[in-house]
């Protein structure tokens, strides 16, 4: 993954991920008016005023984790969406899900990382809340934190391709129909299927 060392890649990737998550959250905001949803610890009482882009930029600037952690965090969000279909990503929870997923990715992946108190400051929440979010996120994922190399590769290649194809804002629009959530958008059947299968899925 030498590409990850490329200095221009990460800022673009961060921008792309922000746009993607924003589209997903907005589309689910529309949906949630029609569907009953659980309120989780990730659900803020109000919509945070900071944009997803600024929030993720901030995390990227201060977390100082391995670049792979952002890909892994994205995989965690995807897994979370698949395992918790009643908790779709929306404008009220996307910020808390983001800071938690990046923190958990860094804790799992990196040997040197910042602690929860630091991430709480970066994320603008209290330490106690950060700790609660972490436990709920872990149980929500069923502690499925390990990412197989071919899974990582599949997501990474997908993101790279999307980045190359076109500037971020329009892609999300084109590939995401309004009634679909992140889980449908990027549902790789990682554990069971071979790499070949995944590529076929991607091609569809």
């Amino acid at each position, binding site marked *: 993954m030498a590409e990850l060392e490329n200095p221009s890649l990460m800022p673009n990737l961060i921008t792309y991920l922000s746009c993607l998550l924003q589209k997903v959250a907005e589309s689910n905001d529309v949906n949630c008016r029609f569907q009953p949803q659980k309120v989780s610890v990730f659900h803020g009482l109000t919509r945070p005023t900071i944009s997803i882009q600024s929030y993720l930029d901030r995390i990227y600037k201060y977390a100082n984790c391995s670049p792979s952690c952002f890909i892994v965090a994205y995989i965690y969000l995807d897994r979370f969406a698949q395992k918790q279909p009643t908790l779709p990503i929306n404008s009220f929870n996307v910020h808390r899900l983001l800071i938690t997923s990046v923190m*958990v990715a860094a804790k799992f992946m990196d040997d040197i990382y910042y602690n929860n108190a630091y991430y709480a400051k970066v994320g603008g929440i209290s330490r106690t809340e950060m700790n609660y979010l972490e436990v709920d996120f872990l149980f929500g994922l069923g*502690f499925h934190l*390990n990412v197989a*190399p071919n899974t990582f590769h599949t997501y990474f290649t997908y993101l790279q391709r999307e980045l190359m194809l076109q500037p971020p804002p329009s892609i999300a629009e084109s590939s995401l129909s309004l009634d679909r959530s992140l889980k449908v958008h990027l549902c790789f059947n990682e554990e069971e299927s071979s790499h070949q299968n995944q590529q076929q899925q991607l091609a569809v």
Partner: protein
Amino acid sequence: MEKPRQISAMEAFEKLEKVGEGTYGKVYRARERATGKIVALKKTRLHEDDEGVPPTTLREVSILRMLSRDPHVVRLMDVKQGQNKEGKTVLYLVFEYMDTDLKKYIRSFRQTGENIPVNIVKSLMYQLCKGVAFCHGHGVLHRDLKPHNLLMDRKTMTLKIADLGLARAFTLPIKKYTHEILTLWYRAPEVLLGATHYSTAVDMWSVACIFAELVTKQALFPGDSELQQLLHIFRLLGTPNEQVWPGVSSLPNWHEYPQWSSQSLASAVPNLDSDGLHLLSEMLQYDPAKRISAKKAMEHPYFADLNKAYL
């Protein structure tokens, strides 16, 4: 791994006795009330400080989640969330109960002065290699293999790898690995010399040290500092150089060390047959690239006469 809603961990289990204490909490032998089954409960404190869920717990659970089905890796049965007396969140890791570990087992022989029977050493070593091969096959480095972390059942002589708190998936690119890993005595020379991108070979070095210890009942390299640890190794295996280990002199902690020539392994590990000594020497190769893998070790002639049907 369901989040418990109705039944708390404390209602589900009856603690029988404390059997150990780790960095983050105590380990209990406990009885599952519903089934009467004896389990090991590893209690982990949370929310007490800035750290949240200890990274060791986070890694151990997620890694065991995928490795626990191997017969030579300790089985994690469940994770439960509970509260302690002060109302703080605790996590309970529910493991199958094993009655001893290799450290205690070796000590019991050291006390009586007997040797561990040759066929037992062989069986334990085979199971260890098999478990390590399984971990490596799933992209996991254990990084802290030592007798204390190898659980045993005395009746069946089954060995299981435990304590994967320092384990990590080695296959994804990260900034750099720490070298603050592994108990000193079982630590590979490349880690001692400061290599930041080490591999499965670090575990095989530990396996080698455990092998020798099973035979002699004494630690092979009992260093009490990083430098002493290296000197112990150099005194037996000879001071490494670019010929035996290309790249060694560019490792971060490399210095000019006293020059020793290698001693015979047979003198350090008497009572091991020639096949055993050959396998041991393959596991103690300086160059990590030349060190034998767990999978290859299982096919070594040393194990040829072992009945592997039940292992």
